[in-house]
């Protein structure tokens, strides 16, 4: 009788042990997962260097565009290209984003150079004074 009681108590103890172990394990699992997904989020750009590169190229292109605009020489489609590059990046297409940003950057640089080349110009020679 007594031994039976002891056995039942032991079983009860055992069950509780397992329960709390399960709790700890699942907590650990949860934590582990959480940490893992968090790590994935912060590590993502590092994992795909193209995304960071594309973002940098877009920022550079926009700087070049603004520099051309500061000398009244921005080209018509540069802003549109930058916008399209941003959209492509948002959709995860970093290759397309980089292509567009490179094109926009070139336009910005050329627009600025175009203005600088004509900085000191006056009236054209076909006008006779």
């Amino acid at each position, binding site marked *: 009788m007594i031994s039976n009681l002891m056995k039942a108590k032991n079983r009860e103890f055992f069950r509780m042990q397992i329960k709390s172990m399960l709790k700890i394990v699942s907590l650990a699992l949860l934590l582990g997962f959480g940490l893992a997904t968090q790590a994935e989020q912060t590590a993502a750009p590092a994992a795909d260097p193209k995304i960071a590169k594309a973002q940098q190229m877009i920022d550079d292109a926009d700087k070049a565009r603004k520099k051309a605009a500061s000398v*009244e020489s921005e080209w018509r489609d540069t*802003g549109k290209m930058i916008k399209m590059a941003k959209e492509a990046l948002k959709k995860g297409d970093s290759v397309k984003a980089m292509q567009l940003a490179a094109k926009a950057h070139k336009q910005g640089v050329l627009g600025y150079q175009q203005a600088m080349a004509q900085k000191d110009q*006056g*009236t054209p020679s076909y006008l*006779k004074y």
Partner: protein
Amino acid sequence: MKKIIQSLALLALSGSIAISAQATTPEEDLAAFQNFFKNRFPGVPMEEYTNGVYSIDPIGRENWEAIEEFPPYEPFIDEGQSMWETPFANGKTYKDCFPDGPSIKGKFPYWDKQQGMVITLPLAINQCREANGEKPLKYKKGPINNILSYIAYESRGQATNVVVPEDDPKALEAYEAGKKFYYTRRGQLNFSCANCHLQNAGMKIRSDILSPALGHTTHFPVYRSKWGTVGTLHRRFTGCNKQVRAKPFKAHGEQYRNLEYFLTYMSNGLPLNGPGARK
């Protein structure tokens, strides 16, 4: 699009552009500008330039004369007249801002010493509206063209007479900025206004013959068949910037105001004949 680029490339080749930076006065610029066209189109009388491309394109002209028999801009003049006569919410009218109105186009654009800027007619109209608690009108499309049509019509026959006052060096600066704008190549296609409307006036670009710059400001606003309505001078500036793939500037912002100042000065002496009709 390819065709545009091809014809532009051809134009670009036709004639080199050595550019001199020698300083010239507005009077000298005017003489050189108008002489250029006298030499380029010796048979065309000065006043004819107010008719744009039709001064040098006899075939287009026939079409245009037929259109002018039932002027497509007429309803806009009527609308503009009722705008002019309808009091603002505060009871005042445009006449309170422009006592000599409505025939005031010949006074614009002018240098305003107090504001330190070129004042164009559309800008003055919006300043008047705002001073009277009304919303400003949009500068390119819409009702501004009605009132401009009416004022232009009432101002027919006045002479273009832009003044660069000598008592304020900033006026000359604004004129020079407009002039530089006109001769500066812009956009991916690398064209200046002058490349098309001076150097290559009379040449064909796709289905268009390039109109002479002389007289470019006398007839605005203009009814354009392509637009299907009347549009402002700065709308046209916008279109001409865009077609060489340059980013256009703000209508009645500093760049276009100064451009208008210079370009209108170049037509000094020519009579006003707006509103006009064009292809």
